[in-house]
C-alpha cells in the first residue's frame, strides 16, 4: 500500500516546528506502524535527508517508550494498543496519516516526535513506592491478600507510563497515571502504612509539574493501551479526600 504522511518536524526544543509531507511507498500490511516509519527513514537517509526521530524500544507493547499521536489519537486508531503493536493492516491504501508528538506543557518536545516525559518519573520519585529496604522482609506468604484485591492491584499496576492519558486529555492531566499507582497500593496491605503521605505527595508533584486537573471526560481511559479503568481515578479521589481529612 502507498500512504501520504504528514509528520511533525522540530529540530529541537527551541525550534518552532512544522508539518512536513512524506510518501510511504510499498508498505506491507503486516508491518507495524514503527516498521513503516523505519522504511520511510531508511529512504530519507539514503536521500541525504534527516530521518524522523521517534521514541521506541521494546516494540512489544510493554516498555511504554513509543508515543505517537496518529490522526489525532494517542497510539492511533486501535483501542488497547501501543503504537509499536499497531499494524498497517488497520490502514487503507492511499490513506493520509497525520503523525504528531504528545502535546502537553509538562512534556516538552525534544526533537520531532520525541518528548520529555521525566515529569512522570518525578511524580514517582515523590512517593510512588512502598518504603521497604532490601532484606528486611517477612515471608511472602505471611501477607495473604484476597485474590480479588490482588487482581485489582494487578489491573492498576499494568500501567506502562507511556503518557497517552496526558496526551489525550484536554487538560493534559496525569490523573490516570497517578491513579493507577495509588490504586495499586491502595488495594494491597503493603501500601497501607504510607497511603496518606503517598497520595498527598504524588498529587502535589503532579500539580507542580504543570499537569492539569481531571474534569471527567475519560479520554484517558479511551486511549490507554493497557485499558486502565477510570475507576482508579475514583479510587485516587477517595484516597486523596481521606488524606486531606486526616491532615485536618
Amino acid at each position, binding site marked *: 500500500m502507498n500512504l501520504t504522511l504528514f509528520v511533525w518536524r522540530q529540530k529541537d526544543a527551541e525550534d518552532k516546528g512544522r508539518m512536513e509531507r512524506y510518501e510511504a511507498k510499498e508498505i506491507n500490511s503486516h508491518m507495524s506502524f514503527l516498521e513503516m516509519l523505519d522504511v520511510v527513514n531508511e529512504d530519507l537517509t539514503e536521500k541525504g535527508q534527516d530521518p524522523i526521530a521517534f521514541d521506541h524500544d*521494546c516494540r*512489544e507493547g510493554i*516498555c511504554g517508550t513509543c508515543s505517537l499521536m496518529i490522526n489525532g489519537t494517542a497510539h492511533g486508531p486501535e483501542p488497547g494498543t501501543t503504537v509499536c503493536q499497531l499494524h498497517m493492516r488497520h490502514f487503507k491504501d492511499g490513506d493520509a496519516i497525520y503523525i504528531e508528538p504528545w502535546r502537553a506543557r509538562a512534556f516538552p518536545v525534544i526533537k520531532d516526535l520525541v518528548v520529555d516525559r521525566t515529569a512522570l518519573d518525578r511524580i*514517582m*520519585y515523590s512517593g510512588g513506592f512502598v518504603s521497604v529496604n532490601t532484606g528486611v522482609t517477612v515471608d511472602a506468604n505471611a501477607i495473604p491478600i484476597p485474590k480479588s484485591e490482588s487482581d485489582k492491584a494487578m489491573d492498576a499496576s499494568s500501567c506502562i507510563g507511556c503518557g497517552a492519558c496526558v496526551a489525550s486529555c484536554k487538560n493534559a492531566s496525569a490523573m490516570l497515571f497517578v491513579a493507577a499507582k495509588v490504586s495499586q497500593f491502595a488495594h494491597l496491605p503493603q501500601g497501607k502504612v504510607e497511603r496518606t503521605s503517598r497520595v498527598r505527595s504524588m498529587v502535589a508533584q503532579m500539580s507542580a509539574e504543570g499537569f492539569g486537573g481531571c474534569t471527567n471526560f475519560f479520554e484517558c481511559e479511551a486511549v490507554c493501551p493497557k485499558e486502565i479503568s477510570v475507576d482508579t481515578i475514583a479510587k485516587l479521589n477517595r484516597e486523596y479526600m481521606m488524606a486531606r481529612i486526616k491532615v485536618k
Partner: protein
Amino acid sequence: MKLDAKTPSGPLAEKWDKHKFEMKLVNPANKRKFTIIVVGSGLAGGAGAASLAELGYNVLCFCYQDSPRRAHSISAQGGINASKNYQNDGDSDYRLFYDTIKGGDFRSREANVYRLAQVSSNIIDQCAAQGVPFAREYGGLLANRSFGGAQVSRTFYARGQTGQQLLLGAYSALSRQIGRGQVKMFPRTEMIDVVVIDGRACGIVVRDMVTGKINSYAADAVVLATGGYANVFYLSTNAKGCNVTAAYRAYKRGALFADPCFTQIHPTCIPVSGEYQSKLTLMSESLRNDGRIWVPAKADDSRRAADIPEGERDYYLERKYPSFGNLSPRDISSRSAMEVCDEGRGIGATGRGVYLDFADAIGRLGEDVIRERYGNLFHMYEKITGENPYLQPMHIYPAAHYTMGGLWVDYNLESTIPGLFVVGEANFSDHGANRLGASALMQGLADGYFILPYTIGDFLGRSGPSGIGTEHGEFGNVESETKERTERLLTIGGKQTVDSFHRELGKIMWEYCGMTRNEAGLKKALEMIPVLRDRFWQDVLVPGVGEELNQSLERAGRVADFLEFGELMCHDALNRTESCGAHFREEYQTEEGEAVRNDKKFTNVSAWKFEGADTSPSLHVENLEFENVHLATRSYK
C-alpha cells in the same frame, strides 16, 4: 592470566554464609564517602542501585532509555523461579540448584548457582513487600506455575507481565532513593567507555543523548548491568536499544569476555513474516504448560490445522521427550522445531513455524480458564498476527533471545578489572550453556538485591576510595578517543544505512553462529565479518551531527561494536569443539541428534582477552569443578 574465581572453601550450602562473614565491612559513617556508578536500570541495575543507596553509598545510575522504568527486563513475561516449595511438591534449594546446573549442561560454576538458589526465596519476599502483585490463590497465598526444564511448580508470576511488575518493584525502590537524593539518575545517557587507571575502574565516559555532549563521571567502583547482546543477530526478542557496547568497551579495556558463543534461542516466538521486520516477539514459555506443540506427520501438508486429524499429527516433543514433553528445555525444544521444519514439515507461509495448540486445554479447562492464565499473551498474539489463537493454534518458531555469555566475573561478581562489577545478563556466571525459563529475572534480582551490596562493600573496604576525579588525564584521553570515533562515523558519508549493515551482520550470525554451528560455517563467518566491517567503516551513512539527538549515530556506535563482537562470538564457537546446551556444533551429536559434550576438554569457561585491534584475542580458561553434581549426559526423555 590465571582466573581466580575466589570461590569460598567449605561445603556448598555454607559457602555464601562463610563468605559473607569473611568479607570486609564498611562502617555506616564511611559509606557516604564512596560513590558507585551503576550503568543500567533493569532488574540487576535498578535493584543494585537502590540497595546500595539504602546502605548509604552515593550512587550515580545511568540508562539509555528516557526513564529507568523502561529497561528491557520489563518485557519478560512468564515468571521468576524460587525454591519456596509452597506447592509441597518436593522443591528445595538443592533441587533448584541441580535443575539449573543440569539445564546449563554443566557449564556454569557450582558455587554461584547454589547461591542463586539460596537467595531465590528472599527475592520473592522482597518483591511481595514492595507491593509486586504476584498471582494469588483464592486463599490469599501466592500461586505458582511450572516452567521448562523443571518438574516442580516453582515459578511465581504476575499474569504474563512478570518482568514488568518486578521491574516496577525495583524501579519503585530506586525511585525512593532518587527522591531522597541518594541516587542521581541520568536517563537518556549512554555509556561509551570505561576509564581504567592503574588497573582499577575509576569511572565512565558517556554521551548525553539529547545534547550529544560527551561527559565523564568518576567513582570508587563501577557496576555494569547492561543486559545481553542478542541484537548481534539483528532480529531478536530484545528491545531495539539493547547492545553490547558497554560490555565490549570494558573488554577492550581489559575485562575478559566469557563464553560469548552461548546464546539462547527461545523456542516460542512469533515467526518472521518479512524482510522489513525489525524484531521478533516472544510468546511466554509458560504457554507450554497448556499448549501442545505439533506439526503435520508428513511433509508438505498444506491442509489447515483443523483439517489434520489427530493420527496425522506429530506431537514431536511429547514423542521424543515423554517425561518433560512440551516443557523440555529451550535449547532442545528450539532445535527440535528446526529439525521438523528442515524435514519440510514446518507450517505457515515460510515453512518456518510449528503449531502451539490450545484446543485440548480449552476443551479440558474451558476458555475462561485459559483466558485467565494467558489472556494478555493471546491478545498480543492476535494483535501481531491478526489471527485468533482461541480458534486456531498459534504459529511459533525459535528466535535469538538471551545471552548466557558475558563479561567474566568471579564469585564476587567482579570482572578482571578491579572495581568493575558486572551483574545480571551482562555477566556470564549462572546459566552455563543454556538458561532455564524464569531464571533470568531471578539472577538479575539476586545479583542486584542480595549479592552486589555485600561484595562491593568488601571491595571498597579493602581498597578504600580511589581518590581519582575526572580531572585525571586519563578521563580526558578516553573522552578524546570517544569524540574522534563519533567524528569518524559522522564523516564517512557513505551510501549504506546503519541498519542495512546491521541486518547483513545479523544474517551472517544467524546462518553460521545461530541455532547450530559447524566448523566450515564458522570459518566462513570469520572471513565475512571483517569484510563487512571494512565496508561499514568506508561506506556507512550517518546523517546529522554529534551535538544533538541523533538516533542514527547512536545505532552506528552500537553496530560498530557488534561488528567486532560478532567475530569474537564465532571465534569462541569455533574453539569449543563440543556441543553443550545452546551451543550445538553439528560435528558433535549422537545419532538421535542429541548434543555430545567433551567433558575432558571443555569442562571450563572460555574467557577471551583483547590483545589489540589487529591481533587475535588470547584464550584463558577457568576450569569448572563439579564436586556436588556428577557430570552426566543431560536427558529429558
